Every structure is written in structure tokens, then in C-alpha cells.
């Protein structure tokens, strides 16, 4: 097996994990979503360039370079969001730490990235292609949603589901006096 397969499997696992992680808590697979995405990221990050063809090598190297600034960047954004004023509560220390991390990621980005590179046209074409796919799927979804619904009866909630819904409602509304 070539290393290229590991690289692609890693990418697919990242997308699968993200898709699963976005699902609500009603789906048990949502729990393994983000760990699966991290595992995929690890497969991509630690794959060697042996067996990768030219464009894959460039994409792999770009992805590695991106991770160096994107990971602290994401973490910095999370910390800034935690420290920013919400409902009159501000955490200035958290906010300052978040901005330090965010500025660090910008420093890493600007010292390793050529602005604007020859990739601008390539990026514009990629975005155009993705927009074409997006529009095609929006059209299909609209078409499917206008089709007549089946007469199939949806089964009632099971006992476990009822207990879960009751727990969620109690947790959120139980303390309200009205």
C-alpha cells in the first residue's frame, strides 16, 4: 500500500469526523466525530511524501504549513471568544491571553506565507468550482423537498428518548419559577 492512500484516508476521516461531530447529541456517533477528525488529521500530518504525486506533495506540504498557524489561530479565537464581554461579564486576562495567541499565529503565518502568491487564480477557480457544486445541490435539495411526502407514519418516541427529552427540558426549564 502506498502512503498516498494513508493521506487520502486521513482527509476522508477528517471530513467524516467533522460531519459526525456536527450531528446533535441524539446521534451516538456524534461523540466519536471530533476524535475521528483528529485521528484523520494525524494520519495526514504524519504521512510521508513517499508515493505522493507532485500535486499531492504540494498539498501535503501546504497543509502542514497551514496547521502551524491555523491550530494556534483556532485556539486563540476560542480563548478570545471565552474572554470577550458577554452579558456584562468580561474576562480581561482571558481576552488578553487569547489575543497574544492570535497575534502569535499571525506572526507564524506572515513569516511563512507569501502574500499574495500565484495561488490566487487557482483559489478563485477552486471557489468557483465549489460554488457550482453548491448551487447544483441547492437546486436538487429544493427539487426533492417539493416532491410529495410519503404517507409513512413516524413511530412515537421510545422510552429512552422520552426520558432524554424530559431530562433536557427539566435541566433547562426546571429552575424557572413561571
Amino acid at each position, binding site marked *: 500500500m502506498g502512503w*498516498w492512500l494513508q493521506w*487520502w484516508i486521513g*482527509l*476522508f476521516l477528517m*471530513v*467524516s*469526523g467533522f*460531519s*459526525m461531530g*456536527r*450531528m446533535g447529541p441524539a*446521534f451516538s*456517533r456524534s461523540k466519536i466525530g471530533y476524535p475521528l477528525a483528529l485521528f484523520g488529521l494525524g494520519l495526514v500530518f504524519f504521512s510521508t511524501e513517499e508515493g505522493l*504525486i507532485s*500535486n*499531492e506533495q*504540494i*498539498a501535503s506540504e*501546504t*497543509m502542514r504549513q*497551514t496547521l502551524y*498557524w*491555523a491550530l494556534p*489561530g483556532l485556539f486563540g*479565537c476560542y480563548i*478570545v*471568544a471565552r*474572554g*470577550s*464581554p458577554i452579558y456584562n461579564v468580561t474576562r480581561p486576562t482571558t481576552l488578553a491571553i*487569547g*489575543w497574544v495567541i*492570535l497575534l502569535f*499565529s*499571525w506572526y507564524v*503565518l506572515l513569516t511563512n*506565507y507569501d*502574500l499574495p*502568491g500565484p*495561488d*490566487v*487564480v*487557482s*483559489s478563485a*477557480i*477552486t*471557489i*468557483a*468550482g*465549489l460554488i*457550482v*457544486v*453548491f448551487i*447544483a*445541490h441547492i437546486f*436538487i*435539495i429544493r*427539487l*426533492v423537498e417539493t*416532491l410529495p411526502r410519503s404517507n409513512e407514519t413516524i413511530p412515537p418516541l421510545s422510552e429512552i428518548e422520552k426520558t432524554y427529552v424530559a431530562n433536557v427540558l427539566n435541566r433547562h426549564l426546571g429552575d424557572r419559577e413561571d
Partner: protein
Amino acid sequence: MVEFLLTFSGSLMLGSLLVLINIKAAYHPYHKTIPLIASSLLILGSGLYLSLIASPEGDTALTAMRQATSLAINGLLATLPAVFALVTLMMLRISARPQ
């Protein structure tokens, strides 16, 4: 010109693959998946055909697909600094939000 065609075909294939993976990973019983799968496969096929036209002669379908899709991934990654700039502006806005 050939590289642009290869990038465009790659982005078509990348978009379709993302949709197909998402359908499989986030499947639930009330999804009407068949039309989406069919359209994704159609777009994937068109992308593959374009990539075969743009690839050097002798390349297999798999090699053409890998070349084109990785080119599109590279193009997508190149947009991330701009996205990060926008996110940073949003962070600046929420940090300076009046109480």
C-alpha cells in the same frame, strides 16, 4: 490553461466527494439521499472526465483524479489566510463590544 481546467475539475470532484462523505457520515433515517447521491456522482463523473482531458496522455483515471483533486485542495488551503483575516476582524469586533 491546462492547470486551470485541472483545478476546476478537481474542485468539482472535491465538492462532490465532500457531499458524498457528509451524506454517508451524517446519515439519518429521514434523509432523502438518493437524488443527492445521484447528482454528486454525476458531478464527480463530469469532473473526472474534465481531468482526464486536461491530464497528460497515459495518465490513469485514478492518477488524473488525484492530481486534480489535490490541486483543488491546494487552492482551497490558499484561501485560508483570507478567511483567517475575516475571523480575526470578527474577534476584534466581539472583543470591543460595548457592555
